[in-house]
């Protein structure tokens, strides 16, 4: 009877793992199957043509711009905020409130942020429907993610490192820069990668703040269309599943490339510090 239970549990565990991986493979497989015929050099690097048959290069550029600007703003602010909350602030009611607020912010639907961005950045700050408006909105969306993951990463740094460093007559700042931040690099990095995923996956908030202009943006103040928004529009307007799937492939590859380069850069940074 006991072995039966054991086997049953084992089967259940295996089944759950299989279902998870299976669904993922199914989705990725389906997208590749549907879309791979469209993938070629001209499709990725060609300019968009409103009459059909063109490439998606403007959307790729817009997507990369959006990711870059959002992360450039959100990462330093998020890390500094987390360092303050975790290392400097007195652990009291104020810090608890701030933590609760950041946690709540991660749960708000992105369309709400989109509406805020459309009112505040687009209209009030007169940035217009533009890449910069979308990026600023996305910054607010990913900021809680960066803060939370960085805080968790800082928490995992053993107290013995802090003590060891301070006992050597270093200042708190030196300890932070030389020991604590390098040790929490992997956690911080996973926060950045999560944020990239969030940015790439976002459509509603971008739709409302950057618009849908399907052309190469002349600057970050131009209205433009990201890959995700493009995929949404071609599916919705033209019902072109094949094209949407091809965009999906590009998105998946883009995410992989960005993740690998983020890991690579952080490894380089770590080496340089030692």
């Amino acid at each position, binding site marked *: 009877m006991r072995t039966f239970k054991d086997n049953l549990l084992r089967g259940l565990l295996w089944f759950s793992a299989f279902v998870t991986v299976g669904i993922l493979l199914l989705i990725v497989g389906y997208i590749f199957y549907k879309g791979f015929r469209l993938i070629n050099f001209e499709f990725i690097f060609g300019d968009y043509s409103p009459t059909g048959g063109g490439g998606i290069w403007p959307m790729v550029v817009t997507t990369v711009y959006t990711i870059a600007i959002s992360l450039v703003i959100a990462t330093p602010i998020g890390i500094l905020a987390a360092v303050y909350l975790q290392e400097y602030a007195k652990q009291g009611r104020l810090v608890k409130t701030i933590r609760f607020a950041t946690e709540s912010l991660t749960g708000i639907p992105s369309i709400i942020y989109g509406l805020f961005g459309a009112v505040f950045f687009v209209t009030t700050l007169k940035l217009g429907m533009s890449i910069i408006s979308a990026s600023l909105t996305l910054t607010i969306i990913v900021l809680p993610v960066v803060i939370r993951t960085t805080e968790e990463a800082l928490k995992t740094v053993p107290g013995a*490192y802090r*003590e060891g460093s*301070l*006992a*050597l*007559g*270093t200042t708190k700042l030196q300890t932070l820069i030389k020991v604590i931040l390098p040790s929490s690099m992997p956690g911080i990095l996973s926060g950045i990668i999560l944020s990239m995923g969030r940015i790439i996956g976002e459509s509603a908030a971008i739709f409302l703040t950057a618009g849908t202009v399907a052309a190469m943006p002349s600057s970050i103040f131009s209205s433009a269309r990201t890959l995700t928004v493009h995929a949404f529009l071609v599916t919705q307007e033209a019902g072109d599943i094949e094209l949407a799937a091809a965009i999906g492939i590009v998105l998946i590859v883009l995410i992989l490339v960005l993740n690998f380069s983020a890991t690579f850069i952080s490894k380089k940074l770590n080496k340089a510090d*030692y």
Partner: protein
Amino acid sequence: MNQSEETAKISVKDLSLFYGDKQALYSVSLDIEEKKVTALIGPSGCGKSTFLRTLNRMNDLIDGVKITGDIVVDNEDIYKSNDVIKLRTKVGMVFQKPNLFPMSIYDNVAYGPRAQGIKNKKELNKIVEESLRGAAIWDEVKDRLKSSALGLSGGQQQRVCIARAIAMKPDIILMDEPTSALDPISTLKVEELIAQLKKEYTIVIVTHNMQQAARVSDKTAFFLSGEIIEYDVTNNVFSNPKDQRTEDYVTGRFG
């Protein structure tokens, strides 16, 4: 030995310490002699580690710690001055568990000097080699200075920790049960090292192990419930204790 000529490196007077409302040390007074090994013994929770950590103000890191009394190191009251950095440069510390940073052996030892602003490669090389030699671990690690310090055995790590402390050229080294996480052979090596180090440094060591206190120290202080019960030349404490409680403890009747 002429006792009256010995100079007190550290002079503690009437030191009391509170964690919030809870008192952990009760007017402790103690003179620690230069270039001697002073052992602090006593049962768990008797305040010996807490006392040790007042000497380089590590207790400052804990919220709600309050201290009264004086600790004078080289004629300077360390709680009157606000230069904790300077104090910790002068008073090094080795912890219970080896706590090397996840960096190379070289970078661990060079960590303190670099933080002080020493950038010159040659100078750093020299400090690292001298410190590792001083901690009797140079021969074991000289070919792998650039590899991770965390790949060393526990005993080796603890000696690199000692090297890291020496690299700051301190006067005093505090050791908080430095061998409690080590095997007997590594323990022996660290004890031999302590005997070497006392030629140059004043050492204060907290230990659970009474044989260790008897082996390595010149003077021993017996702590019980936050008070010093007896403080004397180590031999006297172990073979001819004056207080009944000391005798009970060193003969293993409690603790």
